[in-house]
């Protein structure tokens, strides 16, 4: 017991002794540099380009949203209304938490932004590059931290970031469910929070100033349209999903399912599997599908255009079933090469660098005192064999 008291005393005394000045505090640049920031902003959004020659900081897209069904959960699984709160998350969240900070309206130059991503990946490297390019062009210092896909580590990094008192924190939440508490924590610490890339639940939207990122649902609907066109409006489709429970899981599985159900009732769902992102696992599942469904299997919808795609194409080629139409979400070099070789029919263009650029643009706009969209979507496109050359070199 004496030791326990001693232990506590040591910790408390050490804390008390040095808490008056345990290090340097990084603060925002003082003084009015608003005019200079706005001029820099105007120039940067027009001139900066991604490594594949597209705009780095495109204007955010606002979209119309329909009325919410009375009880989405009561709707069938293939009804788009069932996923209303995911597809239109945040669009109706006009009421923000009273703890949301006001814009300092003193310009973006000299501001420090900590970006907490979800994990290390080739996509994340491109995203980080995009954020740093955009930040530099807008006069902001960008620190990117990665928790390697681990929820506990991401929570820990959020605490760390709050402790450093940056001018803003941008977060790609690992989990939609956990995002509410994460954004709430940042906001309650008085730090402006911005959501980026991955959608959260509606609850979380009140604790962030703005969310920017790809409109995965709309892109998946466009991808489904392309697939339906290639299938001639009928057939059997099987799905390999994203990680269960994440927002892309729903958008990349139920986006196409609901789209087909509404517009192409002759396209049936054969199976849905979640083997993760290992090519070998995906190959096994596709081989099983080919044996199980035979000629009824006419299309495969993938949540990823890299390992999932390579595994799928391997299985298809081994079985001699090149007639199966494969479409994939994503925009990697692997995916683009497979489109170019004709193995994949369509993938969607989703720029990692511009995703980051859009977030940086939104944060800078807010520092400049401008009103920002509650939800701002990233521009999009479809990549097919005809236009794939215009999207090289790939970002990741």
């Amino acid at each position, binding site marked *: 017991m004496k030791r326990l008291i001693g232990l506590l005393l040591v910790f408390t005394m050490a804390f008390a002794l040095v808490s008056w000045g*345990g290090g340097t505090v990084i603060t925002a640049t003082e003084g009015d540099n608003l005019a200079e920031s706005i001029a820099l902003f105007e120039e940067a959004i027009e001139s900066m380009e991604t490594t594949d020659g597209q705009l780095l900081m495109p204007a955010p897209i606002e979209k119309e949203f329909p009325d919410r069904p009375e009880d989405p959960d009561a709707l069938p699984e293939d009804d788009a209304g069932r996923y209303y709160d995911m597809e239109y998350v945040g669009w109706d969240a006009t009421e923000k938490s009273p703890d949301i900070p006001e814009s300092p309206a003193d310009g973006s130059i000299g501001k420090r932004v900590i970006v907490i991503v979800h994990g290390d990946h080739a996509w994340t490297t491109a995203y980080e590059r995009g954020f740093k390019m955009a930040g530099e062009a807008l006069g902001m210092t960008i620190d990117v931290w990665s928790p390697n896909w681990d929820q506990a580590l991401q929570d820990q990094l959020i*605490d760390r970031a709050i402790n450093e008192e940056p001018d803003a924190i941008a977060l790609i939440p690992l989990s939609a469910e956990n995002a509410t*508490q994460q954004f709430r924590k940042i906001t309650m610490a008085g730090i402006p929070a911005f959501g980026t890339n991955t959608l959260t639940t509606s609850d979380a939207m009140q604790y962030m100033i703005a969310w920017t990122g790809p409109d995965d649902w709309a892109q998946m609907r466009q991808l489904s349209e392309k697939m339906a066109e290639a299938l001639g409006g009928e057939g059997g489709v099987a799905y390999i999903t994203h990680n269960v429970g994440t927002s892309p899981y729903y958008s990349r599985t139920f986006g196409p399912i609901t789209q087909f159900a509404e517009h192409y009732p002759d396209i049936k769902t054969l199976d849905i599997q979640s083997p993760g992102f290992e090519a070998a696992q995906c190959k096994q599942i596709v081989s099983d599908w080919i044996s199980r469904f035979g000629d009824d299997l006419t299309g495969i919808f993938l949540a990823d255009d890299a390992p999932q795609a390579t595994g799928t194409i391997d299985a298809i080629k081994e079985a001699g079933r090149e007639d199966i139409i494969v479409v994939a979400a994503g925009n990697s070099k692997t995916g683009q090469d497979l489109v170019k070789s004709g193995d994949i029919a369509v993938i969607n263009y989703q720029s990692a660098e511009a995703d980051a650029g859009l977030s940086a643009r939104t944060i800078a706009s807010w520092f400049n005192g401008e009103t920002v969209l509650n939800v701002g979507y990233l521009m999009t496109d479809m990549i097919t064999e005809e236009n794939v050359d215009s999207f090289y070199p790939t970002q990741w």
Partner: protein
Amino acid sequence: MQKTSNALDALNRNRAYLILALVLIFALFTPRFYTMFNVRSILSGSALYTFLGVSFTLCLIAGHMDLSVGYMATTGAMVVLGMRTNSGLPWWLAILIAVGVGAIAGTINGLLVTKAKIHSFIATLGMQFVLRGSMYMYCNGAEISVRGEFTLTDAINRAPLKFLPLSNLFICTLAVVIIYLVVLRNTRFGRNVHIMGGNRETAWLAGVKSDKLTTLVFTLSGITCALGGALFAISQGTATPTLGEKGIPPLMVALTATILGGTSMAGGKGNVLKTFASILAIMAMLSVLTTRYGKFELQILFMGLALAVAVIYETLRNYARQKRVGIRPNLADEYARETGKTLHIEK
């Protein structure tokens, strides 16, 4: 010479406190380490690992390993939020059910070890996978959150004394450490656990009912871990079935802290307070690493190195000890009684 040896022994016995002190001194040179927010984060962040650490220490003192502590905590976390958010039960009942599930899983561990005669390493490893699979099925692989109901989350994270960085969660953790400390030191149960872990034969001769005691130890471990997981989930407002899978597994922190704290891998010797000090040292060091270098890889590397160094050191010490006194150290006591000479043995 003897004085130097005694001093080194004392340092080694108290290495957990020494490491903690060194880390705290090192942290003086880390920007913004000693802020109210950061110290509170470190202390609250140590809560889950402390629950697991004391459970692991208890089992190790009893001569067993409980590799299921991490998933036992995950189970507690998932069940408490599942019961509250999905089933709408009151908090007290949700916590009770989570702890009950931990108790059942712990008892099964104990029965597998005592009745089925399966080595605890294998039995608890199996339990780890059973719990992992069950939790994936329970929540369909997704997280469960409090869905905007933050009253209890805020309460558990609140520091009752504003000038001290001690949250209610950390105060609960301290209470658990004190309870374990008192029980293991001052009760017959605690003494029997030490005797059983040190020498099963002696325990039998002393009339200790080893099977019953072992089962009880695993049950207590299950209860403590599930309670820790439940409190952690409430404090975070969410529970994930993949806790620590991609980063630092909670089991690894518990194991490292237990060994660093001086608990013998051979059983019979250990101290929950030293385990607790080691966990604080690890958490403080992880905070320093993140602040100074920002990369999670360093945390994983540090944890791996800390565990490796502690295990190698323990192994070498055991080897040296056995070489000096043979594999039956109790013979040294007999030698002392018969000859009147003391054979210097590290205890």
